[in-house]
């Protein structure tokens, strides 16, 4: 096992990685921007390096600054967390060049999954279902081809950037009249956000759900799935609340197992290693399609940890250190129900960001049923430079009803003042009839 690792991230995920390192006797090295001078994760790490200004490109995305700190500190490995450099194959390659272990998949697997169009094609040839769509990016010079492709797929179609994620540049197009202007807008947005204007068309499934499967693979080709996470409660294509198990998969016999097998097939097709997540879209009739693979730890990984009793960061570290997988599929039996609430610094109605000072920040009492992962403490300032996640509140219950009730109490006990936040939105979701019945889809928040 490693003696010392560098965490190339910030906030709650940096603290969460530090916790597991402590447990395993691994020293931690934090890197931080000048805006995070006083942040809790900087204080908690064994060593800390100031690597740049607040803007992400000057610090957390600055590969050479991160690697410089890694070399200076004598770290043997780098944990990239999520976001920032976590899915950057160039960064993983630079680590390798310097003899530093990148805690994640192989460079080849990252590259294979990084662009959606080639990833879709690869999955199709591996026998993993993908939604009807274009096998090549749509070029603006060829509007006739785009119209023909959309007609073949059938309206409504979804225009999606091939690079990037987070829903940026995605548009639903209802009819041919709107296709060309939607393509133009999406290409512009994709170009601005990801440096590539490549977009493609995919069948739009109304009233669908987003369900993802966690997988773990070691360096010897052994892999397991750790069941699903239901991620359909979204605003602007971004997750707000996740739960496991998914009420949708209980409703159709054999569906969970079929999706799990497809997830393992998807990972095996790229000789996957370490922790990864396969995202699927699930239609009303139980049909499911590969959306993308996240080649890193997910924000919502704690709900899997709550129902399976597995420390995913520990598994990541052990795999990266070359240990064989110690988990077998047969022993992975989820117990109870877990829900994660993403507490965001944003207006609960308009979803607009709300930076500012946390004059009051008092999370509910943690217990074996209630977990709080947060990068903030009372008095901290939430800056506009990074994502709006204030805290992840995770609750567990013997069953879904108990988890919902525990969530309701924990949300009511959570006190935040000084900025706008979405605690009230979470309470509204829990009170919603469709949510309580488990019969909801990605449109839930828009109808609330």
């Amino acid at each position, binding site marked *: 096992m490693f003696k010392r690792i560098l965490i190339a991230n910030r906030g709650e995920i940096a603290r969460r990685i530090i916790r597991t390192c402590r447990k395993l006797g691994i020293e931690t090295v934090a890197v931080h921007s000048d805006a995070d001078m006083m942040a809790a994760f900087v204080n908690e790490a064994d060593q800390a390096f100031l690597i740049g200004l607040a803007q992400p490109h000057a610090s957390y995305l600055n590969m050479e600054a991160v690697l410089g700190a890694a070399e200076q500190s004598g770290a043997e490995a780098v944990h990239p967390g999520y976001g920032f450099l976590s899915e950057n194959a160039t960064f993983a390659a630079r680590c390798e060049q310097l003899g530093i272990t990148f805690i994640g998949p192989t460079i080849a697997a990252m590259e294979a999954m990084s662009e959606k169009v080639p990833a879709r094609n690869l999955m199709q040839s591996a026998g993993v279902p993908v939604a009807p769509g274009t096998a090549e990016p749509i070029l603006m010079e060829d509007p006739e081809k785009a119209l023909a492709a959309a007609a073949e797929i059938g309206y409504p179609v979804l225009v999606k950037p091939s690079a990037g994620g987070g829903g940026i540049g995605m548009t639903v197009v209802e009819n041919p009249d709107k296709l060309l202007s939607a393509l133009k807008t999406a290409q512009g947005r994709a170009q601005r956000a990801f440096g590539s204007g490549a977009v493609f068309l995919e069948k739009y499934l109304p009233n669908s759900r987003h369900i993802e499967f966690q997988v773990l693979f070691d360096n010897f080709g052994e892999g397991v799935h750790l069941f699903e996470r239901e991620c359909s409660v979204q605003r602007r294509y971004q997750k707000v609340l996740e739960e496991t198990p998914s009420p949708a998969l209980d409703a159709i016999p054999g569906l969970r197992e079929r999706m799990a097998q497809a997830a393992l097939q998807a990972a095996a097709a790229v000789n996957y290693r370490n922790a990864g997540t396969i995202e699927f879209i699930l239609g009303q009739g139980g049909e499911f399609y590969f959306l993308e693979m996240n080649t890193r730890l997910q924000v919502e990984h704690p709900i899997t940890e709550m129902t399976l009793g597995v420390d995913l960061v520990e598994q990541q570290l052990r795999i990266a250190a070359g240990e064989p997988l110690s988990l077998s599929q047969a022993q992975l039996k989820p117990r109870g129900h877990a829900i994660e609430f993403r507490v965001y610094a944003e207006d609960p109605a308009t979803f*607009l960001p709300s*930076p500012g000072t946390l004059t009051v920040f008092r999370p509910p009492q943690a217990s074996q049923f209630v977990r709080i992962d947060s990068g903030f403490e009372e008095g901290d300032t939430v800056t*506009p430079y*990074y994502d709006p996640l204030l805290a992840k509140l995770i609750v567990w219950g013997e069953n879904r009803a108990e988890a919902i009730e525990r969530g309701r109490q924990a949300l009511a006990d959570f006190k935040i003042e000084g900025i706008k936040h979405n605690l009230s939105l979470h309470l509204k979701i829990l009170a919603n009839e469709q949510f309580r019945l488990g019969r909801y889809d990605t449109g839930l928040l828009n109808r609330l």
Partner: protein
Amino acid sequence: MIEVKSQISGTVWQVLVEVGQDVSEEEDLLILESMKMEIPVSAPDNGKIVEVLVAPNQPVQEGQVLMRLEQS
């Protein structure tokens, strides 16, 4: 004269129009960035851009005037 104000605290990412340019209602005038989100600011009415008060990478506060336009 209409003042176009920022609804949020953040940074100016891109300015999409120039002084003297005619714009139509709901046309994007500039894009702000805050907390990893791009937030387009659009024209509240048809008009002509009279003044652009911000530049890319400039931090802005909630309520700050970003542009002025003359209704047409």
